């Protein structure tokens, strides 16, 4: 058994981070079911317990608390095999604001499962930003199954970005569903690169039930070899003046297979939702332009895909 210090060092080096947080940095590092390190700041409560396979508990931001610096979260597993289950309740009380910078890292995975079940409640006029970056091994022997239920109260703002472009995806089944009340904003972005026999499933759904609620569901996926992706993006607009947009871009190469199902349902004549889906090979005009500058076809394809998956 490795000591906590050693595990922490390995965990952080796998995400090219360091452990030298200053006193006003809130952070949490978990390997499997071990909380390796944590620190909090005034107004942020992390009430977490270790369980048989992971951790569970609540992260709560007290009313009016604004944390300017990102809160660093790192969930991972250094071993090659095992299961990690994270059960989290996240509550942002009214007028609070937080930006989570999250790494999920499984650098040695051969047969691993990472199961995340969370409920996020963003209170009135609160703002929640969650950037989740995955680092996986190249074995493909990992299953990532995150499931999140989100409730946005009036004037709440929720933004999540999911990025998995380093290492193999393995099997991934994302399920995010959000309920949006008056004047709230939902913004969900996914950027994923799959190869070999990776399987990517995304089900994201936003219920724009409030007046002036707004939602954007965007995904950019690149597939090569025999990778497969299936993206269900659903926006249902009930509220007066609710607005939404679903955007799905998928570039496929080799024998990759992509399926995009944008579901747009508008139950109110004052609401407006649009969708756009583009699936196919690399855009020929982009390719021709780069090749006309002397860039080889392979390098041009690489550059275009990296651009599509870049955080902008």
């Amino acid at each position: 058994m490795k000591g906590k210090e050693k595990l922490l060092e390995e965990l952080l080096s796998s995400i090219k981070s360091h452990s030298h947080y200053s006193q006003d940095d809130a952070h949490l590092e978990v390997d499997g079911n071990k909380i390796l390190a944590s620190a909090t700041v005034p107004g942020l409560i992390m009430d977490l317990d270790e369980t048989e396979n992971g951790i569970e508990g609540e992260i709560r931001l007290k009313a009016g608390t604004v944390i300017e610096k990102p809160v660093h979260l790192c969930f991972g597993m250094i071993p090659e095999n095992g299961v990690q289950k994270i059960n989290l309740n996240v509550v942002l009380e009214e007028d609070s604001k937080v930006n989570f910078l999250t790494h999920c890292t499984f650098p040695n995975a051969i047969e691993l499962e990472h199961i995340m079940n969370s409920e996020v409640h963003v209170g009135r006029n609160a703002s929640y930003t969650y950037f989740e970056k995955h680092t996986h091994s190249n074995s493909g022997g990992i299953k990532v199954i995150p499931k999140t239920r989100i409730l946005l109260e009036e004037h709440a703002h929720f933004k999540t970005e999911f990025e998995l472009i380093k290492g193999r995806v393995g099997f991934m089944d994302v399920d995010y569903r959000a309920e949006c009340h008056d004047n709230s904003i939902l913004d969900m972005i996914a950027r994923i690169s799959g190869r070999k026999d990776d399987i990517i499933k995304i089900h994201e759904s936003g219920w724009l039930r409030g007046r002036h609620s707004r939602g954007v569901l965007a995904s950019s996926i690149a597939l090569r070899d025999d990778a497969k992706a299936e993206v269900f993006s659903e926006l249902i607009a009930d509220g007066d003046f609710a607005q939404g947009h679903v955007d799905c871009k998928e570039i496929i190469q080799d024998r990759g297979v992509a399926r995009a199902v944008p579901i747009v349902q508008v139950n109110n004549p004052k609401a407006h939702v649009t969708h756009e889906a583009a699936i196919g090979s690399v855009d020929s005009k982009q390719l021709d332009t780069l090749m006309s500058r002397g860039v080889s076809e392979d390098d041009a394809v690489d550059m275009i895909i990296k651009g599509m998956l870049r955080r902008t």
Partner: protein
Amino acid sequence: MGSVVLKELTLKLDNKRILNNLSIEFKKGKINAVVGQNGAGKSTLAQTIMGLPDYLNFEGDILLDTVSLKGKRLPERAKLGITMAWQEPARFSGIPVGDFINAGADDRSSDTVKKALTLVGLSYDKYKNRYVDKTLSGGERKRIELASISAMNPKVVLMDEPDSGVDIEAVSYIFDVIQHFKSRNITVLLITHSAEVLQRADYGYILCNGNLIGEGNTEKMLDYFNGNCINCDHVNNPFFEVLH
């Protein structure tokens, strides 16, 4: 260098003759304009010279500095010194202007990007990290495309409808850049249906239904173009009957 010669160039697409037996020796280091109405074959000619995938199976030959381009694919031709500016430049989400300019640059560096952007009248600090995407106007993208071409240091630049869809300020910069290319002894081929663009060239060629129906100095070609091509229905063009 930068001599482009077409030898009895014929291109058929779907069994239709789009370029018909063209023999042209473009003026080296000069601004050449290929004019004609829509459907004359001008853009096809540029794409055939550039070597776009659907335009590789031509009859006759295209020579760059006496080297045949037959069988050479797009990046190979670019490496030989030919490049192209599109009528509607592509958008690239997530690719910063600096990376785009450096992609084909002779000398990849921030200095190259700076010089190239300055040439087209755009600020390095303001544009280097912007993405070549829909957040840029059509004029900005055209200028950035020309900046990337300049950084390549090519021998021949093909420009398809250089003034299309851009504002007056951008047009002025575009023509300054064209003059700059000429000053560097780069051969420029302007593809245009505009008499105004033809006026800016040193020499003109008129295409009609894939045929070369005239060539000469700009003034002569302008007279012909204004007198015979504007408002002309291709089928009624007297040359069409003669040449077929």
